[in-house]
């Protein structure tokens, strides 16, 4: 390596040093340690005891886990689907908004919930969802719908958590799709028009393909985050009734920090990690088929 290249390399690693140290200390190291802990029983107070595959055997026979995983998957599926589809529809509609003032009002009102704390807005929604005194049931009642036990029935609890999640983060995808729409080059529409394409055809053959990279980002990002859902079920339902709205992360929290089974909590956390990585890699593989980069 010549001296100039060597100097540049050394400089680069000097600039990278803090984040590399952080990565090793707080991501890579702990991730490897989590694998280690999954083979031990550790209650924080007494020294760890080697447990072999016991935590894994327990994981595969845990009678509570299928429902808990199912709740999480239901949440992820509906959260990602609804925020993507509604976000896209809103963005397409918003490009036809008349007057800049209304555009500002729309953008602001859909986006603001994104910036608030999920824990804090859960405190508010807990009262909106109240079966007897909540305003949601009141207005549904006006429309002739019977009172829905939003937070107290095993059927509705997870739905309530999904609706809150969609309300809170819809604006994030909305903003992304608006920006995506605005970055489509005009000449593509002009070309489509010359070819005799109508409004629907240019949407189908210009707008949608041009938006596939944004859609891909929205889905991957939404999926990774949705699997980590914790704050809203923790505050709204504490996982209940029974396990009806308990999520994987709540279960990790309870195993590790309520019952101090750090080993088993690590095992469950690793399973979540593997699922997120596999799903993300599948997304990247599938993206070769449906995502068009210009």
């Amino acid at each position, binding site marked *: 390596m010549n001296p100039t290249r060597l100097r540049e390399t050394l400089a680069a690693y000097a600039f990278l040093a803090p984040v590399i140290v952080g990565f090793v200390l707080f991501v890579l190291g702990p991730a490897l340690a989590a694998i280690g802990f999954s083979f031990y029983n550790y209650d924080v107070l007494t020294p760890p005891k080697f447990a072999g595959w016991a935590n894994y055997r327990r994981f595969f026979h845990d009678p509570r886990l299928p429902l808990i995983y199912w709740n999480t998957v239901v949440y992820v599926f509906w959260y990602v689907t609804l925020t993507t589809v509604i976000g896209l529809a809103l963005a397409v509609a918003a490009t036809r908004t008349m007057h800049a003032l*209304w555009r500002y*009002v729309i953008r602001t009102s859909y986006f603001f919930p994104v910036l608030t*704390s999920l824990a804090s807005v859960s405190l508010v929604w807990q009262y*909106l969802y109240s079966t007897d005194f909540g305003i949601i049931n009141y207005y549904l009642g006006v429309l002739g719908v019977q009172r829905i036990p939003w937070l107290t029935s095993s059927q509705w609890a997870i739905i309530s958590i999904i609706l809150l999640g969609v309300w809170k983060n819809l604006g994030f995808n909305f903003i992304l799709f608006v920006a995506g729409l605005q970055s489509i080059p005009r000449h593509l*529409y002009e070309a489509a028009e010359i070819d005799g394409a109508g409004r629907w055809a240019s949407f189908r053959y210009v707008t949608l393909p041009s938006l596939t990279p944004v859609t891909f980002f929205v889905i991957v990002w939404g999926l990774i985050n949705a699997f980590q859902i914790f704050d809203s079920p923790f505050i709204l339902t504490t996982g209940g009734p029974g396990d009806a709205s308990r999520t994987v992360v709540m279960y990790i929290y309870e195993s590790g920090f309520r019952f101090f089974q750090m080993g088993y909590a690590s095992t469950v956390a690793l399973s979540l990690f593997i699922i997120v990585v596999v799903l993300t890699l599948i997304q990247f593989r599938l993206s070769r088929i449906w995502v068009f980069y210009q």
Partner: protein
Amino acid sequence: MTALAAPDPIRTAPTRGRLFDWTLTAMLVLGGVLMMIPFVWMFSTSWRLAKDSFSLPPQWLPTAWRFENYHEVLTGIPFVAFVLNSLKVSILITLGQVVTCSMAAYAFARLRFPGRDLLFLVFLSQLMVPQQVTIIPIFILIRVLGLLDTHWALIIPAVFSAFGTFLLRQFFLTIPVELEDAARVDGAGYLRTFLQIILPLAGPGLSTLAIFVFNFYWNEFFRPLLFISTWEKMTLPLGLTVMRGYLGVGNVAAIMAGVSMGILPVLIVFLLAQRYLIEGITLTGIKG
């Protein structure tokens, strides 16, 4: 950044009927009003007598201006301490991330060195690691270091970020290289180029990152729940949640007053910095 200024293709496409557009606009505005309803209810309830919190049909405007609810939150629980704790934690993490991430982003965006692309990929892959995988070993590490129930437990592991490095790298790539080349010819080293050329030009990027990071840690709930156990040391979202039990579920008005005061700074930052936030989101999502 240029994306927002570009002409809007659909608007400039031939339109059929302004009536249709006005109908869409009206529906979107109505939807926007629905989005804001939880905040409206929260705010007007926060000024009422606790016993009127659940009066139906709902009253949308405040029916009373009882400062007592706010007074109760400010004096009955260590609310001011929650705010100061959240400020301290969020500001220190933000400063730390702006420093570490801008340094790393400069190396990834501008310097050539063996293994750069592979290292960047490895670095980005940590975005896939759920926090819950690393949190148990980090908890144990912090416990061993004797930092449990201190703000350092929240701050130290958070001053590095893959997301921040990625965001700033995207920004730095939009800065013309010619300026640095000129500085290089004048004999400036890497550190001087970084400090005197890149950083001054990256103002908008650094502001965007700062706002994102500040907002994220201002709102954070999970780690404070695990690491902080003393009431006076809690950050705002955790403190408010604990307060719910303390003030009793009956006093909705006081809880809403607390949540309102917690959301107020977010609202102010949002109205002042909306442009940066939207540019930042666009830059990560569109050009990533």
